[in-house]
């Protein structure tokens, strides 16, 4: 039977048995079937757990909550921009009261876009894939029981929670004070209106709570560093003995490249923020020209971190896409070594392109030209990935399950985002569109679209493994399509608005831009609808979903070699390495509703034979 028929039969046929099974399709007794979810009970067994899987789930809760918060403010911004109303007309005709109200609205807008950007970047996009999916599947992909430093992992989680809660509290206070001016006496002032970039000298002189907000980001940075250190040590030392570097699943390569960037870039952000704090609190004049400093130095420092941070967001997503492309094309990944090396290559180039954020900040022409050239060279490893994915799909038996829909969406969005990145690397174009909606659209395509699609692809791919429940395939496909359509509607139009000169970070605009903003806002509502459907699908799955088989997709990386959800110690006995892209050992079993391993090819024996 061909693979796609197999997949059809999965949903056409009668409901599969709803009994948890092991990887050979043998039922396991649910009563005795211990899993990491049921291993310990009680709230403390979660809060103090050292289990990487539970820490991954705890990350999932808080990171998705910040995604919700950042998303709500995205909708608020888009709604404000759809109805700039009074702000749009001639100010001269307004009374003082009306002007005051406009001023309040604009303050609110500034704080709202800062909250949206800062929460999304620092608390969702950067940590999401490594912290949720990396924590959950990385040790299992390596056949290990845990990450190298489980206590450090928990510490990293609490750094995140502590820093994140503080950060949201500080920013949220400002928002609430703008809405309810009386509350400022109750909890003090707060808020942040610098944008997520904290550019000096504005950030050293703004009256909003930049000091506290920067301290929050500083703590969040520690979480990122600790996760990175942990992953590097895990990948180096906890691989199975027979798994060489080029036998690792590509998601592990992605996480490895990400961890290197986290470890090398985040401390620079830490020292930058520390100097910013020193400047605000002690009057140390490193960045403030009034104190003898140089504000462009801040931009250099900041982007030395934040440009690699952009790749911290995208590289692990690329790893997920590599896994899914192969599994759902039922075909060995094309160009394994090229994909693996291009991840590391992107990580290296990430550190030498930061200057392209400062083409208009008074850099010398020579530096601009060098950074322009280096930036364009990022397109090479990125294109290597794209072409290898396409070659993997070519003549594969493509199965359009939810993870694959997201993965194909990823290719689409990342291609648009990446190619416009090459536009922006060209100096002359960047001068023209700098700080316009063209930039906004570009980085949303790369950072948000691609990374969010990578996360959603990964979540729907590993969801059965994480919770031992299947989700409703139909609704989740509807959601995937809505999200794709909504995203493109929201942001593609912004390329046009930006190239016509619509500047970013403004609460209002001339009337000729109204049509673009209206379309964009409509798209954002569709996008939000799709995301809420995903949430509904997930909740429905937790409550009503049928038990997931050990291997619903027929993948062969090691995390599928244990039951769903996995045991507390991941595997019954330490597995040997497998070829993650050889799917021959698995056959479809209708009764199980998933793939089971052929009895006659016990994979340990097979591995031993091939040695």
């Amino acid at each position, binding site marked *: 039977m061909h693979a796609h028929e197999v997949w059809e039969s999965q949903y056409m046929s009668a409901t599969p048995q709803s009994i948890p099974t092991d990887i050979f399709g043998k039922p396991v007794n649910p009563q005795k079937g211990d899993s990491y979810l049921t291993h310990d009970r009680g709230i403390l067994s979660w809060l103090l757990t050292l289990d990487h899987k539970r820490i991954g789930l705890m990350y999932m809760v808080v990171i998705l909550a910040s995604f919700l918060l950042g998303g709500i403010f995205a909708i608020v911004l888009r709604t404000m921009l759809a109805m700039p109303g009074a702000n749009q007309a001639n100010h001269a005709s307004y009374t003082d009261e009306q002007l005051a109200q406009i001023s309040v609205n604009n303050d609110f807008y500034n704080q709202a876009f800062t909250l949206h950007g800062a929460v999304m970047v620092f608390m969702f996009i950067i940590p999401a894939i490594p912290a949720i999916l990396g924590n959950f599947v990385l040790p299992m992909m390596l056949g290990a029981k845990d990450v190298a430093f489980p206590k450090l992992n928990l510490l990293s989680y609490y750094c995140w929670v502590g820093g994140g809660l503080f950060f949201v509290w500080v920013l949220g206070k400002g928002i609430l004070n703008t809405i309810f001016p009386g509350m400022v006496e109750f909890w003090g002032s707060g808020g942040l209106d610098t944008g997520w970039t904290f550019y000096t000298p504005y950030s050293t002189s703004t009256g909003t709570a930049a000091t506290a907000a920067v301290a929050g980001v500083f703590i969040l940075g520690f979480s990122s560093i600790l996760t990175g250190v*942990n992953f590097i040590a895990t990948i180096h030392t906890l691989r199975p003995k027979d798994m060489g570097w080029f036998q690792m699943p590509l998601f592990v390569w992605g996480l490895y490249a990400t961890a290197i960037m986290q470890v090398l870039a985040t401390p620079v952000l830490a020292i930058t923020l*520390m100097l910013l704090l020193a400047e605000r609190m002690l009057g*140390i004049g490193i960045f403030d020209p009034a104190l003898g400093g140089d504000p462009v130095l801040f931009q250099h420092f900041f982007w030395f971190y934040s440009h690699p941070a952009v790749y911290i967001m995208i590289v692990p997503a690329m790893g997920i896409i590599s896994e899914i492309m192969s599994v759902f094309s039922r075909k060995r990944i094309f160009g394994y070594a090229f994909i693996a090396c291009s991840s590391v290559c992107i990580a290296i180039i990430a550190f030498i392109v930061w200057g392209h954020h400062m083409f208009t900040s008074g850099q010398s022409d020579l530096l601009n030209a060098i950074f322009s050239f280096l930036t364009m060279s990022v397109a090479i490893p990125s294109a290597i990935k794209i072409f290898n994915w396409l070659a993997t799909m070519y003549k594969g038996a493509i199965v359009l399950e939810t993870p694959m829909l997201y993965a194909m969406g990823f290719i689409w969005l990342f291609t648009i985002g990446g190619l416009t990145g090459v536009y922006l690397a060209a100096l002359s174009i960047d001068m023209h569109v700098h700080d316009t909606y063209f930039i906004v659209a570009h980085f949303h395509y790369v950072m948000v679209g691609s990374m969010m699609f990578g996360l959603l692809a990964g979540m729907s791919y590993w969801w059965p493994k994480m919770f031992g429940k299947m989700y409703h395939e139909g609704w989740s496909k509807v959601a995937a399509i809505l999200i794709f359509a909504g995203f493109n509607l929201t942001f593609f139009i912004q390329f046009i608005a930006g190239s016509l000169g619509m500047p970013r970070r403004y609460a209002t605009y001339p009337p000729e831009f109204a049509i673009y903003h209206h379309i964009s806002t409509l798209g954002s509502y569709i996008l939000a609808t799709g995301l809420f459907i995903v949430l509904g699908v997930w909740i429905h799955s937790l409550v009503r979903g049928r038990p997931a088989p050990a291997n619903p997709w027929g993948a062969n990386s090691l995390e599928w070699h244990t039951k769903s959800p996995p045991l507390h110690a991941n595997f019954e006995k330490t597995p040997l390495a497998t070829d993650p892209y050889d799917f021959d050992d698995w056959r479809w079993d209708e009764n199980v509703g998933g793939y089971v391993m052929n009895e006659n090819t016990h994979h340990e024996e097979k591995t031993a034979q091939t040695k």
Partner: protein
Amino acid sequence: MSTANANHAQHSEDVRQPQLAHHFDTLEQQYSSAKLGMWAFLATEILMFGGLFCAYAVYRGTHPEVFLYAHHFLNTFWGAFNTVVLLASSLTMAWGVRAAQLGNKPLLVLMLLLTLVGGCSFMVVKYIEYSDKWEHVSHHGSGSFSLFAGSRNAFYTEEGEFTDPTAVGQAVRYGESKQHHDEHAIAHTNQAGDLHDAPAKTLEHQSKHATEQGHQIVDATAAKTLDFKSVQTRPMPTDRSDIRRPAPAPQGLSEAFEHIGGIPAPYETLADAGTGHSVVTWEDLDDRQQGLVSQFFQIYFMMTGLHGLHVLIGMGLITWIMIRALRGAFGPSYYTPVDLVGLYWHLVDLIWIFLFPLLYLIH
């Protein structure tokens, strides 16, 4: 946490060494993992200090004469003393690691104790130096640390470059909020001008001329001869043709990059070929450079302060492993924490090896 540990123990199939965590197969694997993690962490430390070194390089490149002048206030003897102390403590630390590997508990504890003593002496000397510097710095500023940079020229062009105070037309006020700050600063400048009489005598570089100049600042401020919109904190450049003036230093970061090919001219002229001495005096600095002297101390305090914090953390860690060593936790089969703390201590030492010449031995 104890529950979790107990549960982990259930998974161990064989009798395992107590130090071996459940997810490792052998102590060697655990050791190499921990060591790799530590190296990765040390890389983050280096990158973090790298930011400070970068800021140092930029400002030394843009204002070489200021650094040349200001570093004379640092005490080279104490700096060298601290270097020797830290190097010696690195030796005792390495010796301690060896003692742990050999299972020599008394030697290990002794060596850790000596390392701790080294760390303590370093911090004591640092305290002496800091309190001394605090005094000096306040003479050059407006009386307190938080404000000693507050009296600087608060003007820059719209392109973000510093402006020559004489180029009045291009100068813009860079923020309303700064105005308030500057008015404070003026008050302090005036005080500082008055104070110049007394402390100037204690500083070898201060001359009568400088004292007069201090008054000039006050006078020029009062006269408001420049046509700025707001209160001016800087004097008109006085006619000082009798003083050897260095060529203007590159003033913005982008310019600094353009000068990267060679040391900017003022550096050469100031390192007086005739005497072989590079004594830059207060009068050698122009007004703007005098204002930037405090920046050297800001960078000095940031760099040595962060380093001192690391020394303190290292001392805490050494105390922790010393207590564990006294309880007999380490031996030839398990000495990972000693080794890791040793690595950390060597890094702290290494950073100081760079800080000492960069800050104390400028020529």
